């Protein structure tokens, strides 16, 4: 089992072969990314037959900082949030290609604590901004991603019972790893 944290949210990937924080920018920690100018998804998880690229945005965090919330909702309102998500995927893909770690279908799944109906539209927005941008691809032998979709906590847990999400502040005595 691989357990990954992003501030107040914790995901247990119970059937994962491996998983790690992809946007690790502390040189002393394992899986140091090292290229700050490249955009990065939060986690990468390896399953027997697939890779998961996972991005987490938590505007529903009761302790969310005003500045971060303002940036998130500004991007949501002006339509650039899809660009941000798409950029994170593309740069992460290139990085993983250079590592020769793109050998299985990639699913880009994001966890965003908003209304499910709004997320359905966001899923389409991100997918439209990723190659092939909705265009026909008769020469392509494979697809960049198998699925691109955004979930909230409820729809994530409903669809992925083997990867349960927990809000730590809702747990009475969360057990946190050292350093969190």
């Amino acid at each position, binding site marked *: 089992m691989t357990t990954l944290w992003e501030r107040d949210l914790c995901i247990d990937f119970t*059937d994962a072969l491996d998983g790690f924080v992809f946007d690790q920018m502390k040189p002393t920690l394992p899986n140091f990314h090292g290229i700050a100018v490249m955009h990065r998804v939060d986690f990468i998880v390896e*399953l027997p037959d*697939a890779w998961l690229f996972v991005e987490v945005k938590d505007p529903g965090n009761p302790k969310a900082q005003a500045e971060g919330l303002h940036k998130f909702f500004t991007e949501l309102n002006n339509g650039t949030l899809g660009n941000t998500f798409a950029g994170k995927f593309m740069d992460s893909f290139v990085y993983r290609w250079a590592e020769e770690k793109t050998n299985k279908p990639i*699913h880009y799944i994001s966890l965003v604590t908003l*209304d*499910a*109906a*709004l*997320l*359905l539209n966001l*899923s389409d927005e991100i997918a439209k901004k990723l190659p092939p941008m909705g265009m026909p691809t008769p020469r392509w032998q494979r697809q960049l991603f*198998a*699925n691109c*979709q955004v*979930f909230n906590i*409820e*729809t994530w847990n*409903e*669809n*992925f*019972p*083997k*990867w349960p999400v927990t809000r730590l502040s809702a747990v009475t005595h969360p057990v946190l790893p050292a350093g969190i």
Partner: protein
Amino acid sequence: MISKLGLENFAKFGELNIDFSPKINVIIGENGTGKTQLLKAAYVANAVLALGNEQSDLTDKLCSTFRPNGDALGKLVRNGTPGGQHAKINAEFGHGQRLSAEFTSSSKKVKLTYFSNESGGLGTPIFLPTKEVLSLFKGITSDKSDKPTLHSLFDSTYLDLCEKLSVKRPTKPEDAIDHDPRFGQVYQKLVNTIEGRFRLGFFGHTTFEPGRFEEQRAKDQHQLNTRTKTVFVPIKAETISAQMAAEGIRKLGILQLLLENQQLKLGGSGTLIWDEPETNMNPKLMRLLVETLLELARNGQQIILATHDYVLLKWFDLLADKGKGDHVKFHALFRNAENGQIVLESTDEYLAITPNAITDAFNDLTKEQVRSKMGALGK
């Protein structure tokens, strides 16, 4: 305004009690959970009480509004109700007005068990049905139309609305705008957004005149002082028949005409009831629709509407401003899985709507995408 409605063994309902907000009520639920029936029951109770005397024929109003099989009152008793057991309606209004009635499957007439409208002052309600009526107006109001045929084609909500629309406006809207700021604010915004106004001419002929309201400076009669006056400025486009205007625009046009002729009078009308306002309406008009309804409610108009539309629901959640006194109450109708009865849950909080048939539909889409693109991953 209606404050409580209780239905027992009536239409689809075994037992249902609903407390209405004096401002905005939004009813949601899957098809077949009785949303329209609930709206119609509130309408009939308000309409009969507003007439103000016990002789008003509740039986006729129920039959012409619900259109049961064979126009038989007894068919409004809920299926499966034991013979002899009563269907009951109880409706209570803001100033103590109340109506209680009952009947059985063999009744020919409704028995009024309580009728109180002593305080008076209850305005007649307005019911906007799913389909807009401007395109039907000429046919419905024509002297040449065969009344029995009309009654067989349309329930009373359509006919009553046409009757209200055909009332002549007491004054030019331009004058009313300058004299009544509350009316002016709602009315001008509506006209300017649909970029024109509907006119009802002779013989029920309905047209749409493109244009907008603007403030112009005008001298008073002694040419001494300058003041501003609101005028309608037609734009250089041909006036078209109402049928040529988009259906969503025609629906908003009904509000415009009812405001003009004061059948929808801020603070003076009965409840405004609207069944699925979103039908055939461009989602981009939805924000204006919700802003208009909130503005009406801020000026004392009670509103009850039923919807299937997420966009409409979400605009209410986003635009309702408690600082301006807005109150939106959500009522979810659903079928109890154990006994099949229709049940109601009401809440003031959008996120607490349970079950929410509208967001459930979005969740179904989410699940289907996961199923088709990710198969058994994560399961």
